[in-house]
């Protein structure tokens, strides 16, 4: 039994009713098969496939970076880089009380504004609510916004945010990673931070990434 190998849709990962099919897998008879292209991962009895591509599916409490798409009478519609559009209710926009009859909602968040928000709720019919109220949640006014494959985000963050912490230290940039594949970088060495993130994105399926990225970053430091 080899842990962590690339599997294709329909490929059998393991046989036996002792195992449970997790994300990215399905059961066919007594076999557990992959549903998506990705890396198989067997932990105890749970069989998973870590996808290597695919869209972002909103999950409750995920930090995301959204772009305001529409300003309506008492809510905003937010593009969260997913097949589902999110809604931000009036009370979730600001700490201040907003009255739709007196306040102009376009002044709080206008079309095209980039907002760090959090998924408040996802209903069964996939209607998504986001909130901009909470620690660290705010409108982004400066820096660079990167689009990466949402499936590579866990590798960019790293275990206990080790990877993103290291990039922050080495580049001196402020970095916010949204689960939806949007990353905001501001201050410090933005170019280097972007280069490193692209490198992680391209090599997300390899193991021992933190070490090789550390080496790379140190090499870049010496070069300068």
């Amino acid at each position, binding site marked *: 039994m080899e842990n962590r190998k*690339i599997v*294709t*849709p*329909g*490929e*059998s990962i393991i046989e036996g009713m002792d195992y449970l099919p997790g994300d*990215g897998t*399905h059961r*066919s008879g007594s076999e557990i*098969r992959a*549903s*998506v*292209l*990705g890396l198989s991962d067997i932990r105890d009895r749970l069989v998973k496939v870590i*996808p*290597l*591509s*695919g*869209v972002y599916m909103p999950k409750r409490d995920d930090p995301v970076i959204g772009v305001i798409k529409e300003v309506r009478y008492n809510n905003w519609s937010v593009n969260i880089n997913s*097949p*589902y*559009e999110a809604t931000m209710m009036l009370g979730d926009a600001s700490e201040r009380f907003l009255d739709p009859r007196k306040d102009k909602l376009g002044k709080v968040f206008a079309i095209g504004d980039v907002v760090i928000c959090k998924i408040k709720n996802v209903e069964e*019919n*996939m209607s998504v609510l986001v909130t901009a109220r909470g620690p660290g949640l705010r409108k982004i006014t400066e820096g660079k916004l990167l689009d990466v494959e949402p*499936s590579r985000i866990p590798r960019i963050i790293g275990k206990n945010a080790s990877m993103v912490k290291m990039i922050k230290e080495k580049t001196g940039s402020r970095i916010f990673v949204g689960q939806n594949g949007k990353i905001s970088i501001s201050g410090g060495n933005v170019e280097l931070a972007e280069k490193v993130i692209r490198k992680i994105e*391209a*090599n997300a*399926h*390899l193991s021992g990434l933190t070490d090789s990225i550390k080496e790379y970053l140190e090499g870049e430091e010496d070069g300068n």
Partner: protein
Amino acid sequence: METKPKYLYKNSKRLDGRNLDDYRKMKIKMDVVPNAQGSAEVIFGKTKVTAAVHGPRVMHPRRLALPDKALLRAKYDMFSFSVEDRKRPGPGRREIEISKVTAEAFRSVVFLEKFPRTVIDLFVSVTQADASTRITGINAASLALAAAGIPMRSLVVGVTFGKIYDEKGVGHVAIDVDKPEDQWGMADVAYARAPATGDVVLLQMDGDMTKEEFDKGKKMADKAIDVVYKAQIKALKDKFEVSK
């Protein structure tokens, strides 16, 4: 237009030198459309087809979205330069039909219920046509869907087979028909399967064939499908080996 040849099969060789159970030279290229979620180009001999997948994404207009699952749409298109005489662009009777059967073939393997109220758009474009385009398109679409990270029960693999005549007018069953064999042959069958589930997801026939000939052709095609399936898996895995 050329005239009908006297034979399509002579001295145990087909017009292009193949045996009855040989498929044409196959080539797979992944990620040929950077704007798409997933894409692939599959080449069988002189037939070249590109498939691109967009989505799952928001369905517009909203009223066409399905409340409990994703809608899978396919658009099969032949470029006007893909054949010898200019092909009138745009979908006609034939294109609409092929789009329909392609979408239906994939609806049975994709886990559509994972993406309610969305749409998965599948674009199949024939850049060069030399028969078996719908099946080549299905092979490309299978790879494009997998590359887009869309959950599926199985990949989909197809091979065509047909019946071609020798100099005495006797029919022989052959796989992966090319243009003259498709045009002048006695029958041709488009056949696609989902190897992991074993289901037949597309089966169409033009012309006449006995049951025995059909079974023989299906058996030959199944053998070729195993090879093409392995090639599909290899192409998907190589996507990640190369960047090592």
